[in-house]
Every structure is written in C-alpha cells, then in structure tokens.
C-alpha cells in the first residue's frame, strides 16, 4: 500500500550516514553520492572515519561516517549541519547528533539500541525514549529485524545477512529522496558478479528498505532536490586522490613522457598510489618502494632517466623525504611531490585533516633550497593542480610540491570531464641527441632553466649529483663565487615562475572593508559565506590562493583594495606568517582552527561579522 506523501522541494540537502566501522557506511555514502551525481545534482562528500580498521564494537571511537551534500545549485562544501542523519547504533548517534540541525530527520536502527550498546556509547538512558531527541523527526526503524526477515529464506548465515543492513538504510534514503535504485543495482551486480546469492540478498534488502519507508507514517514527506543547472558536458563523481592520479596521467600524456610513481603507503595519500597501480595500460610505472626515502629517491633516478617522476605522501612521509628534496633542487630535475596533509605533528591524527605542512613544504631543506609550492582547493581541481604541478616541474626543471589534504583526497565532488585536446601541451626542455656542446647547467637566459639530457641519448654524457657544481659546465667545485651564483640562480629560476602562473583573483567584493584570505581545502566554505554576504551588500572579498611559492604578481594590488585582511587557515598561522614575510607592508589578522575538522559556514560568518 502506498501512502500519500507531501514532496518538499529543497535547494540542497546534507545527509550523513553513521555507524560502527564495519557497518559499511563509507560504501553507503559513496553509493548515495554516485546516484546523486547520475541524477544530476551538484555534490560534495566528506568521509569521516577512525584510524582503526575495526575499533571496539559499538564505541564512539569506532564510529565511521560519510557526509553527502547535494544541491540543485552549486555545492561548494560538504555542509556544516545535516538535514538527514542515518545512525546505525547508539554510539554513532551520540557522536553525530551535534552535526544534525534542529528538526533534522534522524533514522536509527532501533534494534541496535539495546541496554548494553546504549551504555557502551556513554548514554545514561535510552536517547530514543528519554525525550532528548524531541524537536527532531525521529524515525525508529527496526532495520536489523526487517533485514533478517527479508532474508529468512536466503540460506545465508546471520553474519552475511547482517552485512546487508546498510542496504536497508540506503533503500530508505532513496525513498526519502525520490531516487531510483538503478545505479546501485548496477554497482551491486558488478561487485557480486561471482556471488549470486549476495547480489540477490543485497538487492532484496535495498528494495525492502525502500518499501518500508514507503509504508511508515512518520515519513510524511519526501524531499525533492532537482538536478543542478550545470554547464553542459560530461560529469562524474571523483575523489581528490583519484583526481590527482588522473591529473598526473594527463600531464604525462601531454608531455609525451612515461609516468613514474615511487611511493610508500601512508594515510590519507595511499589512494593515489592505489589508483595509479590500476593504470598500467596507460604505461604508468608504479613502484611501491621499501620506504618514503626510496619512494622519492627512485623518483629522482627516474627523473634523471627521463620520466615524469612523482612521489606521493602525507606529513610524516614528507619529513622523511626532505634530504632528497634538496637533491632534486641541486640537480635541477623535474619532480612532483604530492603531500596529502593530515593532522600533525608526528603521527598526529592520521585520518583527520589539517593544513599544517605549509612550513615544511616551504622551508624544510638544508641550504637555500626553494621549491615551488601549489595547493589544490577542491576534490575536483586536484586533477588540474596535479597537472599544473607536473607542467611547472617539467617546464622549469624543478621539484614542485602539491599540497592537498585529507578532506580533498578522500572527499568527492562532481567533476566536469575535460577533453584532453583542451589541456595545454607541456614542453620540457629535452636536449636532442648529439646536441653540440651540451653542458648540464647551461641555462635558457629568460627562464634560467637548464636542459634535460636523458641517459642513453647519444653524445650528452654528463654527471650530476648532490655536490655543488660549476654553472654551465657542471664540474664539481667549491669555488666561493660560483656557489653564491648557483644559489641565486636556483632562487631566481623559481621566482621567474610567477610570470607563468595566473594572477590572483578575488570573489565577492573587489574592494572594501575586509578581504578574507585562505588556501587549500577551505575554499568552498569560505566562498559560500563571502558570496552570500557580498550579495547582502557587505564589502567583503575572498582571495583564495592556489599558488603559494612563488606568489602571484598582483598580491600587493589586491591587498591594497581592502581596509582589513584576515587569513583563515587550519594551522597556527603558517600562511599568514609567510605573507607577513613576503608582503610586510600589510597588517594581517588571523583566524586559526586546529581541530582536524573543516571550517563551518557559521564559524566563517562569525569571524567576518566581527571584523566588519
């Protein structure tokens, strides 16, 4: 029997799936967001999971979540508060109620709220009965019982049956959002192509959840989020780590060079290594090294030998690579270093994100060893900034650091698929066979870039390495004047890149009372707030930096247009101090949050309002 329900038309909705790690919440969230992408919503996602693979059952420490923000207009962030929370056990409810907005629809598996689990979550009484959830639209669904009922005749054991509970919850959500099940069924058919009984079970439970939602009175309205008015073209849902991997493959194709990755697994960067390992058909040479140092040094060897060489890591891994980064600087070889930042210092909080590796990206080497630093600012543009890091490295014969972070790397976003023909060609300065009078450190007078001679090329034999070399000839020398010249040339070569990168742009007000400055993954949330405040007539602008070292050439010009400048970042003030050094004429306020969590729109709004 189908009940008559109201349909609420919404611009955008945030849904969060939470449960015990092992409850399949990451998959559930991914399937919901993929379906939303296929439906045509714009979206952003945020996986929020513990470092432990299976923390103790039913504890707050073991809660795994996946937040999805979908909209019919542009979605810039994964959203502060959720409108719909699906909680598979008491601990996940306890950990996430604070991110549910007042009045939110909360769907719980009521079967999981037994006395022991309630106590283990740290509740003194059952939250489903003690009125603490008054003011929310609480849906108490017997998910476990109904899942087991649906599969009573399946022949599967209890463990197998209970593994499909997440499909019941997903089915309910699909009903709630008027979505069809087609995309998810296709996914399941692919995943369980060898296990017919699991495929049938998952499909059955998914449908059971959908049908259950259709019958209960408490769900008296469903939500309609219409497709977004997106620019024409092809789209897909993509995580930042996958986007970065693909950007590297795109750069290799555009430079007509083989891609070489030397890397060692580390959270949250591992997925770039995992992704590139799949693409041997594109010639990707992926070397899982014995450690971080072998990751980068093997990449330096590959760069010497003429590949587009890359190493990927996260904070502590970058620390291990520092000496080798200096080697790449002095040998002036192209090398892309991707740091998917996480909360530090030391092991810190591996699964939580932060922007606190900027100092080590800029300053960690011994000697004067400048390295260009760029930062991606959305999961989708990890593709373009990985491509850009490779372009700068190859065309300027320098290592380049690309900073992303856990939010960007694991989070996903709608990605408008480019055509390779529309991407710029990359032209590395490769020396031709038997080039007359080749010298390893002879430079292009405009860019100061040296030429790249691959071993094996007839007639260009030379030796380079970590010892200081004479300019032009590359002969080992400790000559005082030559060393100073080489230090200056290396710095000047990097500074000259500023003329080959885009000018800094400002969104919101172009001049006025306050400029909020940021970099990295906070772009979306700050842009959303600034655009809405600027639309309300506030004189606030937003400058979000993707190019950090060297900085764009028009920074002074932009900063002069505002009375006040505040720099917001998820560290203790690394970018603001860098700006104080690079552009000392300005007074900078700072806003810092170091909690392993993203900025919320409310926080940014409050910060801006205080200064206006």
């Amino acid at each position: 029997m189908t009940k008559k329900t109201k349909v609420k038309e919404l611009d955008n909705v945030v849904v969060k799936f939470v449960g015990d790690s092992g409850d399949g919440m990451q998959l559930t969230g991914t399937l919901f967001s993929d379906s939303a992408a296929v439906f045509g919503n714009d979206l952003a996602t945020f996986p929020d999971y513990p470092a432990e693979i299976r923390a103790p059952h039913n504890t707050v420490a073991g809660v795994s979540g996946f937040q999805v923000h979908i909209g019919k207009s542009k979605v810039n962030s994964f959203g502060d508060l959720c409108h719909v929370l699906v909680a598979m056990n008491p601990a996940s409810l306890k950990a996430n109620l604070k991110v549910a907005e007042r009045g939110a629809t909360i769907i719980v598996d009521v079967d999981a709220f037994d006395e022991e689990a309630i106590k283990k979550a740290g509740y003194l009484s059952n939250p489903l009965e003690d009125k603490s959830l008054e003011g929310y639209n609480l849906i108490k669904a017997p998910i476990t019982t109904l899942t087991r009922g649906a599969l009573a005749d399946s022949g599967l054991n209890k463990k197998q049956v209970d593994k499909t509970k997440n499909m019941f919850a997903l089915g309910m959500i699909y009903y709630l959002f008027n979505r069809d099940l087609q995309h998810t069924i296709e996914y399941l058919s692919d995943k369980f192509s060898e296990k017919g009984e699991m495929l049938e079970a998952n499909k059955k439970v998914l449908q059971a959840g959908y049908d259950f939602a259709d019958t209960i009175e408490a769900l008296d309205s469903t939500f309609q989020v219409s497709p977004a008015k997106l620019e024409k073209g092809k789209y897909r849902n993509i995580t930042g780590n996958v986007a970065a991997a693909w950007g590297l493959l795109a750069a290799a194709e555009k430079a007509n060079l083989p891609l070489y990755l030397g890397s060692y697994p580390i959270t949250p960067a591992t997925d770039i290594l995992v992704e590139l390992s799949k693409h041997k058909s594109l010639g990707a040479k992926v070397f899982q090294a014995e450690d971080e140092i072998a990751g980068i040094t093997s990449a330096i060897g590959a760069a010497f030998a003429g590949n587009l060489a890359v190493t990927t890591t996260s904070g502590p891994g970058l620390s291990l690579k520092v000496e080798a980064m200096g080697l790449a600087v002095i040998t002036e070889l192209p090398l892309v270093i991707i740091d998917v930042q996480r909360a530090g210092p030391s092991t810190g909080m591996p699964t939580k994100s932060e922007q606190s590796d900027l100092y080590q990206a800029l300053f960690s080497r011994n000697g004067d060893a400048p390295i260009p630093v760029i930062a991606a600012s959305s999961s989708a543009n990890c593709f373009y900034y990985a491509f850009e890091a490779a372009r700068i490295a190859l065309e300027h014969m320098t290592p380049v650091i690309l900073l992303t972070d856990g939010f960007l790397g694991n989070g996903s976003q709608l990605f408008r698929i480019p055509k390779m023909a529309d991407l710029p060609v990359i032209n590395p300065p490769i020396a031709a066979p038997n080039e007359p009078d080749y010298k390893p450190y002879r430079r292009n007078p405009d860019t100061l870039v040296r030429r790249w001679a691959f071993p094996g090329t007839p007639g260009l034999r030379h030796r380079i390495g970590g010892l200081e070399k004479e300019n032009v000839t590359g002969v080992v020398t400790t000559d005082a004047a030559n060393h100073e010249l080489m230090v200056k040339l290396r710095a000047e070569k990097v500074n000259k890149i500023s003329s080959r990168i885009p000018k800094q742009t400002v969104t919101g007000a172009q001049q006025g009372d306050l400029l909020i400055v940021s970099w990295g993954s906070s772009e979306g949330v700050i842009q959303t707030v600034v655009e809405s405040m600027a639309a309300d007539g506030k004189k606030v602008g937003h400058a979000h930096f993707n190019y950090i070292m060297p900085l764009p050439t028009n920074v002074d010009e932009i900063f002069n247009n505002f009375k006040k400048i505040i720099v917001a970042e998820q560290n203790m003030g690394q970018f603001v101090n860098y700006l104080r050094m690079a552009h000392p004429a300005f007074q900078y306020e700072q806003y810092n949050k170091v909690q392993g969590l993203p900025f919320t729109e409310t926080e940014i709004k409050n910060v801006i309002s205080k200064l206006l």
Partner: protein
Amino acid sequence: MDAIYNSIEKSSKELTKEDFQSGQMVKWCPGCGAHVILASILNTFPKIGYNQDKFVFVSGIGCSSRFPYYINTYGFHGIHGRASAIATGVKLANPGLSVWVATGDGDSLAIGGNHFMHAVRRNIDLNIILFNNQIYGLTKGQFSPTSPMGSVTKTSPFGTIEPPVNPGKLVLGVGGSFFARVPDNNAHLLGEAVYAAAKHDGTSVVEVLQNCIIFNDKAHEAWVGKEAREENMLVLEHGKPMLFGKNMKKGLMFKNGKLLVVEVGKDGVKESDILVHDMYDDNPGLQIMLIEMAPPHFPVAVGIIRAAKRDTYDDLFYEQIESAKKSSDIKCVDDLLNSGTVFEIR
C-alpha cells in the same frame, strides 16, 4: 668470455679503455684500493659491448661514491645510502640502460641497508660494486658495519662491541641471485667478476675487499696479502674443485653436515673427493657456507660465489605493463576520464 645477451643495445664499433676515461683528476689517496677497481672497470667495460651512452653509474656518499666522476658514462652522485634506490628508478625509467652502483660498506650496509636489501630481494637488474674497506674513510676513520668485533677506531677507542655484518650472507639471506667477492689486488679476478655481473640478469653484488691505506691499512691482509693468500684464500671457479694452498693440494670436503679442509693424497683423500664449485646452483646452502669461511680454520672464499637464475623485477614490471596495454580498453587518458559512471548534461 661468453658473449652477453640482453635487450641493451650494443655498440657498433669496438671500444677501448680510453673511451671510458673521463679525464677528470682522480682524487683518491695514492695506494687506495679504489684505483684498482677503477682500472679493472675501465678495462672491462669495452668488452661488455655497449657504448658509453648506455651506461649509468649511480653512487651514494663516501670515498667509493666519487666513482661516477672518473668514468666517461652518464653518472649520478646521489645522497648517502640511497644509491640503489636511485638506480632502481633509473632502471625502471629506462630498461635499455646498463645501470651500475658504486657504493661502500657504510653507504649500503649502514645508512642504506634497507635500500640495498630490497634491491637485492627484488632482483632488479643492477650491478652493485660494494667497496668494503671496513671503515668510514671520508669522515676520517670511524668503524663501519663490517669492522670486525673489537676494532679500535676514532669512535671506538676501547674497541667495537658489535659483531660485523657479512655482505655475502646478507645478499644470499634476502634471496640474492648473484654474489662475487674479490680482493682489490687481483685486477684479473675483479675484471672477471665485473664482466659476469654485467652478464647476469638481476641484481649483481660484487664485494671488493678494499684496502684503506690511511685509516684501515691491511684490514684484509691476513687472506689477501702476498704471504698469506696461498694458504688463506680459496679462488672459486665454476666447475672446478675447491683447491688451494701452496701446491693446490688443500681442498674442501663436505662431511657430517659440515665443511672440512682436507689435503689431497693424505688419509686416502683423492682429488675426486673435493667439492666442485657450482655457482649456478639455485640452492644457496653450500654457497652461504663458503661465504662464511674465515681463518684460522678455513680460507676466505673469493670469486663468483653465486650466479643463480631468477626472474628479474624489471622484466616482470614491463611484462605487466605490456600485457595491460594489450588487454585493457583504456588506451589513453580520454578513455580513462570517460570510463565508469559518467553522465551528461545537454
């Protein structure tokens, strides 16, 4: 010498030692064993048959690691301990290169032990010349991981209290396919080992028992010295009985699970009782026993101790790429971008 067959392109003209001389001033101390290593390599490289452009010499840090400057090939002077990791990247980037590593006991067994071990384990086609002088020379005389127990050095004035590592045992312990050990005063044997290393597919480790005339003079004297070597050094040759001694009458037998030094003609021992060296034997058991031998009860074994056939990492690496290229529908990045779940806004 048997000809070398592999995918590295051969030179169309005959090369000489002079073609490989870099012309740079060699700055090792007079009398250093490294000069003999350089001379042997300069003599042997023309015989390998690739032209100079196909060779890459990679090094780490230490006296040994100045090597790339003294040979007219492509060269990369890396950072301390990382030579075999850098060389791995060179070989995977371009398998058409003959990649050599010049390294020392500190560089490859202390700070770079991890990279050395994993290169050998993977059996990637590198040729590693390990200059083992049992001392840190470039930093002026501190003990190294191969210094014998009790060594008195600047940082062990009361003698070292740690047992040394035996490079050959390490190589075979991680599944290494090629190991040779040669004294630095036997240029002929060194040349043979260098040639055999080039010929071998996989990681070849040539340990050179090198003299540091300044900080560790005569470290290997008790078996490589003129007086001592007849009695204390066994030169292994594939297919030949393991004989040594002034009259080549001493030999090795295997009895009750142990090696035994015997004398041919004494106690009824015949030459046919003596063990015959098999460097191609895949089972490393006897080879490890030979590597472990040391005076006073045994001679030190030198020569090519192991040259077993194993798949190489670089061959398997490229086989996977080639087979993926054949079987996958994704032939270019446009294909990849449009693979999987994609939808279109019109």
